[in-house]
């Protein structure tokens, strides 16, 4: 079950070219949705204006430093979800993010490179596909039922739906029905195709809803993280005070505030 290419199994009823066209369509939808989102919310303009403001006020930052900030942003904030202060959220996000990358990558590989049963699929791709979907489900359901803040701090029901849930729910639906489909297919169950089509529906919602979901956070969150690091390097810190330089604990009540 974990080593067979699920897309090759159904290539008899759905032509590989149709599946390939679908993938291309999804990529186009994401690109178009993101560009629309950036233009509509003026996020690129916002970041550019902020960056210029910070540049005008702050100290000069050398090109080398900017490069190191960019690398730090990519490694710490993007690859390791460093922007989350809460460890539970960070782990859930890492599971979801890498799960999604494995899942999407293996899906594309299997559909484009090994579309039919005639070409043997290396075992790594189906395994990655299963692992990715499972990671999305673990991280996603953890987030959905336990971490979502309207549940934890606002005391809402874990089942309450709102627009902010569009992204996480369509992602979870896509991964859940992918797992179900793979399982039913391996068993040769009659409902295999129902699970498959539900998987397609949720995937389409996921990639088609970019302007309405927070899917676009993939594009503006790194920008925000980069900007935060840059503002620390050039001393502007978005007007925040620098961390206090008091290595020792304040002793008993004898300190007057320090004014500069």
């Amino acid at each position, binding site marked *: 079950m974990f080593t067979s290419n699920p897309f090759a199994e159904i290539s008899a009823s759905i032509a590989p070219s149709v599946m390939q066209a679908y993938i291309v369509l999804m990529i186009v939808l994401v690109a178009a949705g993101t560009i629309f989102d950036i233009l509509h919310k003026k*996020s690129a303009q916002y970041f550019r204006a902020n960056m210029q403001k910070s540049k005008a006020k702050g100290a000069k930052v050398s090109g080398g430093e900017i490069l190191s900030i960019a690398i730090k942003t990519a490694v710490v904030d993007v690859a390791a979800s460093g*922007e989350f202060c809460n460890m539970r959220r960070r782990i859930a996000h890492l599971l979801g993010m890498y799960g999604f990358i494995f899942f999407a990558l293996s899906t594309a590989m299997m559909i484009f490179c090994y579309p039919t049963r005639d070409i043997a699929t290396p075992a790594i791709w189906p395994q990655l596909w299963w692992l990715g979907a499972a990671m999305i489900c673990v991280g996603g359901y953890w987030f959905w039922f336990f971490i979502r803040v309207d549940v934890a701090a606002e005391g809402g029901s874990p089942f309450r739906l709102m627009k902010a849930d569009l992204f996480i729910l369509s992602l979870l639906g896509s991964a859940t029905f992918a797992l179900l489909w793979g399982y039913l297919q391996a068993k040769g169950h009659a409902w295999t195709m129902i699970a498959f089509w539900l998987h397609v529906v949720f995937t389409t919602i996921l990639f088609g809803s970019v302007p309405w979901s927070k899917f676009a956070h993939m594009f503006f969150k790194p920008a925000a993280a980069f*900007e935060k690091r840059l503002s620390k390097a050039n001393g502007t810190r978005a007007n925040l005070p620098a961390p206090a330089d008091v290595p020792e604990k304040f002793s008993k009540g004898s300190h007057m505030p320090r004014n500069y």
Partner: protein
Amino acid sequence: MPTFVYMTRCDGCGHCVDICPSDIMHIDKTYRRAFNIEPNMCWECYSCVKACPQNAIDVRGYADFAPLGHSVRVLREPEKGTISWKVKFRNGHEKDFVSPIRTTDWGSIPSPAELPPPSEEDFKSQILAHEPDALNIKGSLPVLARDRLKKGVI
């Protein structure tokens, strides 16, 4: 001066929702980011500002009459026992303040149940917890005597 949230900085963790005494910091239903639902009931107490791990909450001037272009931002570092403020005026003038917030370790206060219990006599007296020792005076808790108060107004 009500609070507002930098949407790109907020990650929707809900610390502000948890702490706001006015119950006006909530999570937006579309973007899952915090926002101030009722700026006119904001006391600018800065509880949410200090609680935000991302420093994503700031405080602005009133929309109707406060001058714009100033900034009052704060960094609370409980592990160091300090609070730092940066005040920026419209003319670019800046002031920095650092003050202690606590001289003991967080969580170090003992429950009164861990301290010696009051005696039988204490229950019959007028003293409150830890008195008369905590008063730091010689003698016992002052008691109102009939002749002590009416000696003029001041």
